């Protein structure tokens, strides 16, 4: 048989492989240009104590998580119990940004589902979340001691992501 006849078959198989891999990928997971860049600075009033502020800069020297959420976000509700559970382990401090939200709704959410956050910034107009390139809440950033973003999770944190990515990376960064 003419070997040349195998070329279209090989091309077809390659196409199928590409399409199959493409199907399995989540188009919503866009690689963030912020990875390995300094976390954008912000200073926002806190959700629970509006008179106090919280800023990314004051976290220098710590490895920490910054979680963007809102009471309007359905996937955040799914993620919340896990955050509460992980906050109890004390492995990594979790800070929140409640964005584009209503203050009383935010407070009620915490009262109802528990509060895993060491502090929560209240980003009423969503500007800080734009600076962090947030487009699909919840989103979570792991930030190192130098204030550099090392990992970003788009969508809810799952057990898999927590155990296999976030915790090992945080251990490494804490060394």
């Amino acid at each position, binding site marked *: 048989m003419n070997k040349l006849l195998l070329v279209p078959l090989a091309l077809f198989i390659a196409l199928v492989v590409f399409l199959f891999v493409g199907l399995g990928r989540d188009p919503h997971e866009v690689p963030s*240009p912020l990875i390995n860049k300094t976390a954008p600075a912000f200073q926002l009033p806190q959700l629970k104590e509006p008179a106090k502020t919280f800023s990314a800069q004051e976290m220098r020297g710590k490895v920490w998580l910054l979680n963007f959420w809102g009471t309007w976000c359905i996937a955040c509700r799914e993620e919340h119990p896990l955050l509460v559970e992980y906050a109890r382990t004390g492995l990594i401090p979790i800070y929140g940004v409640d964005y584009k939200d209503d203050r009383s709704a935010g407070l009620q959410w915490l009262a109802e589902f528990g509060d895993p956050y060491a502090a929560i910034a209240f980003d009423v107009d969503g500007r800080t979340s734009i600076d962090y390139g947030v487009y699909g809440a919840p989103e979570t950033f792991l930030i190192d001691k130098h204030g550099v973003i090392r990992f970003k999770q788009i969508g809810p944190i799952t057990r898999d992501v927590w155990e296999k990515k976030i915790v090992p990376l945080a251990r490494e960064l804490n060394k």
Partner: protein
Amino acid sequence: MKRIGLSILALLCLAFVLIAKDAQPNEDPQIEARMKNLTQQLRCLVCQNETLAESHADLAEDLRREIREQMKAGKSDQEILSFLTQRYGDFVLYNPPVKATTYLLWFGPFVLLVAGAAVLYRYLKRRRELIEERPLTAEERSRAEKLLEM
């Protein structure tokens, strides 16, 4: 009858008021034209098949507000685009920039085209070589003549 007509008119007016809410009558028309032109080239990250100009997602509205404010502050389109790509990556651009990681995207089709043309050329050339002209034998000629007579 007149009453029904009036209430339909009133409803229509209401509908127009609701539609008009979205437009910004007090904005500078020059900035609005720039806005329209720029946001049509940008992808809304929430509904990825919509442009930033037409999306009704919350984020798209906030980004339009941000872009409008930056335009008023005198930023150039290029500065605004880099503001957005610094945050969301090249993915926001419907027109991806030409750089090392996008060479395949930009030039791949041309490479395929050239490769296809080369394959076609070789194939045609070989086929031409296979054709050899050979005069008919006397027997074939008489057969052909018989067929033509029929």
